[in-house]
């Protein structure tokens, strides 16, 4: 993430907090102080958990997940697999009692409630990436007649470039192999049945406002609870699950994980698009990382993002899209976002969360 983006993010964080405090009628700085206090509390609890008798409880949780690790070869193909009731209910009350406040893994799993959690709970790695070139065949997508540019051709070209960049490090699956009509359902089926770890859909935007320009990155939704994330992350490492395994294993409990991971992936991709494209296009605009109920995002099992890599309705960007080097840059930006996300996962797997 560039310094500029980080700076803007920090400014918006402060702006949002200031407004929230106004709405809640809290003194200025309250939210920040609360956040810092909560982080401190989490760190303290983590230390206490690791040092004290609560390791018994942790062991129960680890054992639960460990059993699943042993069985993962058998269960990996079982897309619908969910943690069994007794395992969940055994861990919950013990942990809740220990924590004294009813927060922690116990609450995380209690009653089969869905909760967000940190990916560090189960270490992940990215092995397979699905690249989805938007549109194709009869579905041309958007069009700029003046340049005879069809969205389906641009997305295919970028997808192919991205495939070449990804292949040395990842297994790559394309949802179409040329100018074909592939229904959205089929695209998600290809992704889900391949057991892929990430899904990246490439599109080009068309906006009625011809001056509008830039890119957008979408994911299906997100929720975050930093306390639960940190607490759980401390206890479960080196389990060797892949992203897809995790999704299958934890579907019933942690439905937020895929969405949260999607958001992280979207942030990586968005940030990378800005960093890379701003060098070639000084008017580039990051239109944001946003949530949207696109079928390819909702119906896929793995973290999924959809990138609207440029606005074809903007004359300048349409011209740029016609240039091979610019399309290559877009592919490089997407690759860099995916690889960055994969590296981050790998780092958190090794305990390096910086």
């Amino acid at each position, binding site marked *: 993430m560039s310094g*500029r983006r980080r*700076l*803007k993010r*920090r*400014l*918006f*964080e*402060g*702006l*949002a*907090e*200031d*407004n*929230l405090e*106004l*709405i809640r*009628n809290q003194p*200025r*700085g309250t939210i920040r102080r609360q956040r810092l206090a909560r982080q401190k509390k989490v760190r303290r609890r983590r230390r206490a958990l690791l040092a004290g008798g609560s390791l018994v409880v942790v062991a129960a949780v680890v054992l639960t997940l460990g059993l699943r690790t042993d069985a993962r070869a058998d269960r990996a193909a079982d897309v619908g697999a969910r943690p069994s009731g007794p395992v969940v209910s055994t861990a919950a009350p013990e942990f809740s009692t220990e924590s004294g406040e009813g927060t922690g893994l116990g609450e995380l799993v209690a009653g089969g409630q869905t909760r967000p959690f940190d990916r560090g709970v189960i270490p992940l790695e990215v092995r397979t990436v699905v690249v989805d070139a938007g549109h194709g065949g009869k579905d041309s997508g958007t069009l700029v007649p003046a340049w005879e540019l069809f969205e389906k051709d641009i997305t295919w070209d970028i997808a192919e470039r991205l495939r070449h960049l990804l292949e040395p490090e990842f297994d790559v699956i394309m949802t179409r192999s040329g100018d074909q009509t592939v229904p959205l359902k089929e695209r998600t089926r290809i992704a889900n049945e391949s057991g892929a770890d990430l899904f990246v859909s490439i*599109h080009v*935007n068309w*906006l*009625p*406002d011809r*001056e*509008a320009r830039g890119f*957008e990155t*979408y994911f299906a939704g*997100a929720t975050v609870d930093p306390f639960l994330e940190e607490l759980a992350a401390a206890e479960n490492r080196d389990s060797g699950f892949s992203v897809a395994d995790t999704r299958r294993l934890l579907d019933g409990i942690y439905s937020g994980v895929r969405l949260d991971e999607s958001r992280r992936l979207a942030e990586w991709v968005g940030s990378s698009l800005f960093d890379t494209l701003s060098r070639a296009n000084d008017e580039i*605009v990051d239109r*944001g*990382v*946003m*949530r*949207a109920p*696109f079928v390819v995002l909702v119906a896929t099992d793995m973290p999924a993002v*959809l990138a*609207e890599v440029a606005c074809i309705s903007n004359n300048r960007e349409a011209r740029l899209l016609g240039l091979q080097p610019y399309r290559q840059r877009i592919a490089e930006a997407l690759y860099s976002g995916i690889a960055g996300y994969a590296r981050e996962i790998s780092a958190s797997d090794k305990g390096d969360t910086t």
Partner: protein
Amino acid sequence: MTDPSKHLLVGIDLGTSQSSISTSAGVRQVVDSYVGWPVDAVARKILKREVLFGADAVENRTMLEVHRPLERGLLKEGSDKDQQAIRELLSHLLELGGAPEVRKNGGKVRAVVGVPAEALRVNKQHVREAMRGLVDGLIITSEPFAVAYGLDALLHAMVVDVGAGTTDFCVMKGRYPTEEDQRTLVNAGDWVDDQLYTLLGERHPGMSVSIHTVRGWKEDYGFIGKAPGKVKVKIPVGGVPSEIDITAEMKEACENLGPPVAEAMLDLIAGVESEYQATVRQNVILAGGTSKMPGFGQYLEKAMDRFGGGKVKVVKDAVYAGSDGGLVLAQDAPKTDWEKLPG
């Protein structure tokens, strides 16, 4: 895949003298911050309107109950009419920006409203209250911060926003400005008007002009430093139309604004980490309606001389710098923030 025609982002600069709106649809409008209601049924019949705004309200003020809800840069408290006036003004601005139409067609309107840097919490809450139901998302921000953001002066820069009611200062340190990074003075355009009005009254006792006329003279002829020429105006003195030279009074009134502004600017810069002070001094941005006064930028530069020198850039489009900045903020604001901050 998105359809921005369904949504509208707006930046609003709620000013003492003028309020402006800039929208993502490319609309930019400014109105004088006056709201007037007909005083009786006769006035209503003549004016054929329930409420008048801006210059229209000032022109017809004899038939109106005129409110300037942001006098001294702050929303007046304790008066329902002023509360109503601010809502009417905001509503009018949004109407000029095409917001009701967007909402009628199912789109969402999200607004960033700039208020004086040190506006009290209660003032901000009044603004939030006044905007209730008019927009779908609302972010209230410090006006000079909006200006700085719009000009991409995010780090090691300072905005001095000299408006009518207040002069707002904001030093950008790479974080959302805290109270220590901002300052508000009531020494601003209106204060100069009062000074000029008093000086003229003292030196030309028979003079009969309104504060509105004096404000107009200041806007047309105000200066700091060397006079660009003689300032001569025609006014009735003792009932007789006379041309008088008000160059000296104009110079004195305008120059009275310099010291408090320079002092606050230097004081805030002194609060910046020493290694960045020189950079901040080179990035002073002078904004607000009163920034157009010739010689103001040079005066502030001169004030920085004994600290190692500095550079003052005067914004080109002072009228819209605040609302344009608000719009850029609205465009850049993460969607998740909008979801947390309803209108």
